[in-house]
């Protein structure tokens, strides 16, 4: 059973804090993504886990053993981990089979066992016919498979991936993502995956840690991250959202013209997030909409409309208020410009978030 714990990791470069108080715990076989914009410290964190970087503060523990602290780190080669690099880092002077067998050779396995196991792994990634080729003769996708095979061949305790798909074109990217997920399911290796692509992180991970400027903003399962973002940054980074300002008092959030009960909110100014997908539109005649428990109705007009092929993206101006919202509607739901509509929102979908 593998258990990886990062405890209050900090990395300073001169006066600059690249990673700030990173704490997380990975369960055995868990697939966790570090997600955040460029320069937020994902690679720094991953390389601290790998042992290439000594933390300024904090510690890393693997199966109860401290492997990193400011006092020293267990060398990368002694950590029982493996890694897939952004550049693939396939050794150009070795054949595919030699690349994949390298880690096993380092473990001093007998040659015949190495051969057998390399054959099996190459079978899994469908590269057995290329075993004796050199990397320069492979396509980008094939190189990526070699990197994947090399990383799983040693059955590491932890596998680390640093934006492994960013050098691939769009089609291959999806294919390789599926491949990585399949390998994870098959071998159950505890995995930390770095990406700045939220859809990639959502599709592949058990949990996602959203990082901003070196700090973890939120760690959650993908759906919860989408449905219940805790901070403004998380809400905006995971898909699109509407942010509305208001204030909170006595378990209620008050916005311009409507109020929503909310158990968790603190009193004072409040910011709330509503996903465009949670705004249901219907044509507004003279009649009132049907009342339902916990559903909010707001009168609005279509202010802008963009057809995105699979759905509509409507910009809505609320009647009598200086507020505008965006809604995502199915392709069949066509409204003209300036058409009067009702917006219906489940109150529980209006999520208070932290952050200015």
């Amino acid at each position: 059973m593998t258990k990886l714990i990062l405890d209050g990791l900090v990395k300073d470069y001169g006066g600059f804090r690249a990673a700030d108080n990173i704490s997380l715990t990975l369960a055995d076989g868990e697939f966790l993504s570090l997600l955040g914009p460029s320069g937020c410290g994902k690679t720094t964190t991953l390389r601290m886990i790998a042992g290439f970087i000594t933390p300024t503060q904090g510690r890393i523990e693997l199966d109860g053993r401290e492997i990193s602290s400011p006092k020293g780190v267990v060398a990368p080669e002694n950590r029982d981990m493996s890694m897939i690099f952004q550049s693939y880092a396939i050794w150009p002077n070795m054949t595919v089979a030699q690349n994949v067998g390298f880690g096993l050779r380092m473990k001093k396995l007998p040659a015949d066992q190495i051969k057998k196991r390399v054959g099996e792994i190459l079978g899994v990634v469908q590269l057995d016919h290329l075993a004796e080729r050199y990397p320069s003769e492979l396509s980008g996708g094939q190189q990526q498979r070699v990197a994947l095979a090399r990383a799983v061949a040693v059955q590491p305790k932890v596998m680390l991936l640093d934006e492994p798909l960013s050098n691939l074109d769009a089609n291959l990217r999806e294919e390789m993502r599926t491949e990585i997920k399949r390998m994870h399911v098959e071998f159950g290796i505890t995995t930390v995956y770095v990406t700045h692509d939220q859809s990639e992180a959502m599709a592949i991970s058990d949990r996602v840690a959203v990082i901003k400027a070196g700090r973890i903003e939120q760690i959650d399962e993908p759906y919860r991250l989408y449905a219940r973002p805790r901070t403004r940054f998380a809400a905006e980074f995971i898909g699109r959202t509407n942010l509305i300002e208001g204030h909170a008092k006595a378990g209620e959030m008050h916005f311009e013209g409507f109020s929503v009960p909310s158990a968790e909110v603190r009193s004072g100014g409040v910011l709330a997030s509503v996903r465009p997908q949670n705004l249901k539109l219907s044509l507004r005649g003279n009649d009132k909409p049907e009342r339902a428990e916990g559903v909010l109705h707001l009168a609005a007009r279509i202010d802008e409309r963009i057809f995105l092929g699979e759905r509509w993206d409507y910009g809505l101006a609320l009647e009598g208020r200086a507020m505008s919202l965006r809604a995502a509607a199915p392709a069949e739901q066509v409204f003209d410009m300036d058409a009067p509509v009702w917006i219906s929102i489940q109150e529980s979908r209006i999520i208070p978030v932290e952050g200015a």
Partner: protein
Amino acid sequence: MTDIANVNGLRPLARRPKFDWSLVVFGLLTAILVGLVVYPMSRLLIESFSDPKTGSFTVANFFDVARRSRYLLAYWHTVQLAVVTVIMSVAMALPMAWVVSRTDIPGRSLFYFGTLGAFIMPPFLGAIGWILLAGPNAGWINQIWTSLTGIEDPLVNIFSLWGLAFVIALNVFPLIFIFATSALDLISSEMEEAAAIHGAGPMRTTWIITLPLALPAILGAIMLVFLETIALYGTPALIAIPARFNVATTQLTTFFEYPAKIELAMAFSVPLVLITIVLLGAQRLLLRGGHVAVSGKGGARTAMRVGRWKWLFLAHGVAVTLLAVILPAGILVSTSFQIAWAKAPVLSNLTLDNYRAILFEQATVREAMFNTVYFALASATACTVLGFLTAYVVIRKLIPYSSALAFLAVAPVAVPGIVLAICFYAAFAGPPFSLYGSSLIIILAFITRFLPIAFVSCASGIRSLNPELEEAVRIHGGSRMRAMVEVVAPVLKKSLMGVWILVFVICSRELSTAMFLTSHQNRVISILTLDMSEQGDYETLAAMGVVLLVVTSTVVAIGMRLLGRDFMLRRN
């Protein structure tokens, strides 16, 4: 497929932490660099400032040197020599470089051959060739002149400052050629075309646009030629000593005549080192500025039409090739098969005895040839390994203050070979090392002298390598050393081979660094050449030279085959 996950038993094999040998290796490396660079060079400073009897601090050595007009004259001759050499080599190289880089003149690729030939011709062999060609009495040019005109006075005399400068220029002009072509290659023709549109003809454009743009690089090369010339020992020893004028390097050797005055030799060397440091610094500044001037990125170039002038340029290139390579090599080859060198190579004058003598009879020559190859092999190998390791440590910042190692590795460029030889003599010849006359002292000196070349080339190779390749080794269970041995070195195989071949070739002909360090047991071909030339034994000498030329050219040819045509002529 789940069975694969179970073909397991891997995790229980989890390793004991391995000992990281790399730290030991890097520590050793630092110690070696200090021993090879800091220790001998510090002797230069220490001995030049100390009293030979008491060992106490003094500046008297410098006064002793400065008081003797003969010593000052040597420096004056050296400066004259260097200036004349620079002018001559620019005149040789610049037109050729321009032709190769900018024009459509047919046959210009032959110029590469001429330059490469001059580059691989050992300087002392070129000098011997020219002694045979242009010696005042029996030299071939003068013999032919006399027989044609009946005039007894020689037409040319190589034993003069002009002759010496000429011979040196024929050997060093490739430096200017290399720098000038690589600068000219960077200038886009758009700049030239811009001038042409405003009414300047092609020749005028070249004068006012092209050459000024390449000027920093050319000036940089000129400084290198200047430095080469003032540091050169072999050619002056062969030509200036019989011509009875002294230059700084030949004067230096007189301090070693009995009783040896090392402290004076050291004091006398200090200006050579200072000039070298100043000029190298200036050269770096120039080249830094130069890159800005020639960074014309739209670097498409169209060859310039030269019209009728092309015959002139072609003739110039052919003449330089003839003078630098074909004539001296030809006379060496023909002499090596002759009984008497000054007589015509008619059938009765031809023989294979010279070769039999050097290969089977004369033990001194055989030993010198063996030593030359042995020292070159050992030095090239050690130099490449050392340069590679140092560059790796420096580029990957593996130990604290690793940039200090970089400084150590390039520091020997500041010391002319003959001065380095004195330093090594002072540092290792006597007790406690007592290495005088051994193979080791020469190999160590060669390693030190050529470490900068190896280091710089290796560093640029390593810099081009993605560090993730090494990190991948480590995260998959290999140590740093393993990353170096199994990935970095194999991936850089070609550039390492290039370094090795380059160092091998220059070691095989190095003379000045071996001076003062050789006794009868560890002589090399270059040193033996001096002795044999003094004895007038030109036939055997020529045979030995031809063997060296064949070995060198073979190695270079192999290198070109493996690494591409221009691997020797690339500007580092």
